[in-house]
């Protein structure tokens, strides 16, 4: 039996229950998502987009689901002291997929900014949520006619390459999702504090979590978001997350994701970003410690002169697996995209990076730069990289580069000459290597904190952020 069968059956059996526990806005898209999921099923390794991560295997165990919305009796504010020194943030928690409703005394957003449970927001602001919920994904999965290679066959546009095929994991998330997070920044509003959201995964049994995040920045809005993924329990957890980001004209968003989960955690995250005129989005994801991670990022540049910076740092060892898959879709002229991903792979870890830059017919004057650099520290670490350019416009400047290599011998020798031990010298070089990604972080306190965490990570002193440690 293929892995998707159990989810198809589960959905059919629990359709009523899902409806009763969630708002109509969330419920409205389930059936369509189910039809898609039933049609395409979960991808196997033959699917080009998933060739580096075995989705069938990840989804084959029998996970429990918290469909009845049982409350976990923990107060994350008590157990977590996850703070970034010298940084005052609005701190929120999501336990599995449920927004923790008890408010932190300091956490009060200003200026009409909404930060709440997605399900509640759908109930309170149905028009606002339904305007965006699922729509960014839908747009991303609709082929645009004649802007890339392809031809019309029997009146239907058949693209040369199927860039817009629906994603099975997004479909699964949409059909089973019950809650998550909603962040809304109104027009010309600037969030003065960074918004920090800690995703806590906890359970006593093996659990599948479907979390949904919707971030909307209206015209001229500015916000900084920090997401931390933590796991608290030593059970097998499978988390799917679909995040939709709408960046209105002239909006600015910085979104940082930090993953510090344990080896039993599997994360499938799909991030869809839609950018409008002159918007600027910076995405920076750091995988510090994890089990199996697959991050898919789709950025659709729909407005002229928008800028996307896409950064990622990965540190993996033991049997860890990190797969980043990105697609930056240049649909209109004069947009800029920068992409930088760096991996350090130790032990038997597997890293994969597939980055596609798609420049459509109309996207003249595009500037795009993609870099992927990787360090394999052991013989058994395995790196796959695939930096791809797909270009249909002629007045563009696009570069990409990828390297896989080791630490510079001359630099090692130089340091040893000056009395630095080999281990310490190696560490310094590795640290500097990943440092390039961390230096892209704009928030200074966070940057310092990340440098500190990365260094500790390389020293093997932590498997988790010390502030978040439960013990």
């Amino acid at each position, binding site marked *: 039996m293929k892995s998707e069968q159990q989810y198809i059956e589960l959905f059919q059996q629990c359709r009523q229950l899902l409806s009763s526990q969630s708002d109509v806005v969330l419920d409205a898209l389930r059936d369509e998502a189910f039809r898609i999921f039933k049609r395409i099923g979960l991808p196997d390794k033959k699917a080009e987009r998933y060739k580096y991560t075995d989705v069938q295997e990840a989804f084959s165990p029998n996970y429990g689901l918290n469909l009845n919305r049982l409350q976990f009796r923990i107060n994350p504010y008590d157990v977590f002291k996850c703070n970034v020194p010298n940084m005052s943030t609005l701190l929120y928690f999501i336990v599995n997929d449920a927004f923790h409703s008890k408010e932190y005394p300091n956490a009060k957003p200003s200026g009409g900014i909404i930060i709440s449970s997605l399900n509640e927001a759908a109930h309170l602001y149905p028009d606002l949520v339904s305007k965006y919920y699922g729509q960014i994904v839908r747009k991303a999965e609709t082929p645009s006619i004649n802007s890339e290679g*392809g031809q019309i066959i029997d009146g239907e546009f058949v693209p040369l390459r199927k860039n817009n095929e629906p994603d099975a994991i997004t479909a699964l998330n949409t059909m089973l999702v019950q809650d998550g997070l909603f962040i809304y920044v109104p027009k010309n509003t600037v969030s003065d504090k960074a918004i920090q959201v800690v995703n806590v995964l906890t359970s006593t049994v093996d659990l599948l979590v479907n979390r949904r995040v919707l971030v909307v920045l209206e015209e001229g809005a500015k916000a900084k978001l920090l997401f931390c993924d933590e796991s608290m329990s030593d059970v097998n957890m499978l988390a799917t997350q679909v995040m939709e980001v709408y960046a209105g004209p002239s909006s600015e968003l910085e979104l940082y994701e930090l993953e510090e989960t344990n080896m039993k955690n599997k994360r499938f995250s799909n991030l869809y970003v839609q950018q409008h005129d002159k918007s600027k989005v910076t995405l920076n994801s750091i995988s510090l410690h994890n089990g199996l991670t697959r991050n898919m990022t789709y950025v659709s540049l729909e407005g002229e002169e928008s800028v996307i910076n896409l950064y990622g740092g990965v540190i993996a060892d033991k049997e860890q697996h990190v797969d980043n898959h990105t697609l930056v879709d240049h649909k209109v002229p004069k947009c800029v995209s920068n992409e930088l991903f760096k991996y350090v792979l130790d032990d038997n870890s597997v890293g994969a990076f597939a980055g596609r830059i798609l420049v459509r017919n109309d996207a003249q004057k595009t500037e795009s730069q993609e870099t992927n650099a990787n360090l394999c520290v052991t013989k058994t670490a395995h790196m796959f*990289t695939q*930096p791809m350019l797909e270009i249909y416009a002629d007045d563009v400047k696009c570069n990409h580069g*990828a390297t896989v290599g080791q630490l510079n011998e001359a630099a090692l020798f130089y340091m040893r000459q000056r009395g630095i031990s080999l281990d310490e010298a190696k560490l310094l070089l590795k640290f500097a290597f990943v440092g390039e990604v961390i230096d892209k972080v704009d928030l200074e306190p966070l940057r310092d904190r990340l440098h500190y965490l990365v260094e500790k990570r390389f020293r093997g002193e932590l498997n988790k952020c010390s502030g978040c440690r439960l013990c």
Partner: protein
Amino acid sequence: MENLKQEKNKLVREVADRKYEYGFITDVHTDIIEKGLNEDVIRLISARKGEPEWLLDFRLKAYSYWLTQKMPTWPHLQIPEIDYQAISYYADPTAKKKDGPQEIDPELMKTFDKLGIPLEERLALSGTAVDAVMDSVSVKTTFKESLREKGIIFCSISEAVREHPDLVKQYLGSVVPYRDNFFAALNSAVFSDGSFVYVPKGVRCPMELSTYFRINARNTGQFERTLIVADDDSYVSYLEGCTAPMRDENQLHAAIVEIVVNERAEVKYSTVQNWYPGDSEGKGGVYNFVTKRGHLRGADSKLSWTQVETGSAITWKYPSCVLSGNNSQAEFYSVAVTNNYQQADTGTKMIHIGENTKSTIISKGISAGKSHNSYRGLVKIDARADGARNYSSCDSLLLSDTCGAHTFPYIDVKNDTGIVEHEATTSKISEDQLFYCNQRGIPAEEAVGLIVNGYAKDVLNKLPMEFAVEAQKLLSVSLEGSVG
């Protein structure tokens, strides 16, 4: 009035036709077998060529495997459905009419003369031995005798099967097994002629060996097979050229090239591929689906692929290297030009298995008109390949706003001592450069030709002299009409 129009059209047609100057058809008696593909056809081909039993078995096994395979859909190509039953798999232009003269038809000799490939040794360019293949049969191989004195075997593969069965049996399918891919299976089942080269130990081949492939007959496919074996300490440089007449329907060309390089041997393989690319409306042209692979078996061996791809309606081709021998080196230099409705998905695979192996990839893509040009490459560093090194550079040049240039590199590294570098750029011709040329009285089209030639120079320099001249001309011709 009508006359004038006709006259005008004639001129236009002439100009249009000039772009592909090898598009003529040779009127020669050709023995073509019935269209279609089944076991009987394969037995018939094998019987015509008087092949031994083991080769027929090989073909039949390949055929039954092919039946289980589907045409691959992963390339970045739009391939119209191919009816494999509508193709004739064997066409012999050398077949004698029963009452006709018994030597090679002078028409055939003329054809190759016209293509600039004289088959009479006294007329030949000095230092090049030629195997001329038309449709499914090798017409003539020159300088065979003088090569034999050195122990070098250079002949058509059919002849090699007859004269050197042990060598062929040992190496055939050892680099590209029939299970390799869809087209490899098809070729293994129905392959006709191609060249066989064996360079014995310690021999440096004194002249360039070359094969010229030509498709002439209508509704046929060409399925040639080339096998090159360079034994220890030997050297050979091999050239391949191809053309086809202009026909409205598409023609299929699915070839296999296998190269075995033993210890300290060196092989240089250069291709100027100029199959008919179809007209400016995208009608006709050759489908070029080729599997080329070299196996660097011995330590310190060297293999270099150089290709200039200007022809074919659709190109699907990845000359590859398996670097098994320690310290072996492989190179891939490619210029691929697509214009009008041409599509190309081409690149290379470098599979590093031996220690301290090195590979270099230089790929230059030029797209114009409504064409699509993709580079697809794999660099794989195996866990055993300590100290492996790869450098890849892929540049694309865009000459119109309706064409596409794509890069799909795959890098798999399983070793901590390997160093792999890949870089790619995509841009259009610099307006400054064009302006500079214009300013000095060079018209736009010529200027583009100049700039493109400069851009492709890294690769063209790697070609043997005569080929480089031809390739430069080809580049200019292929891009004619792509500016303005």
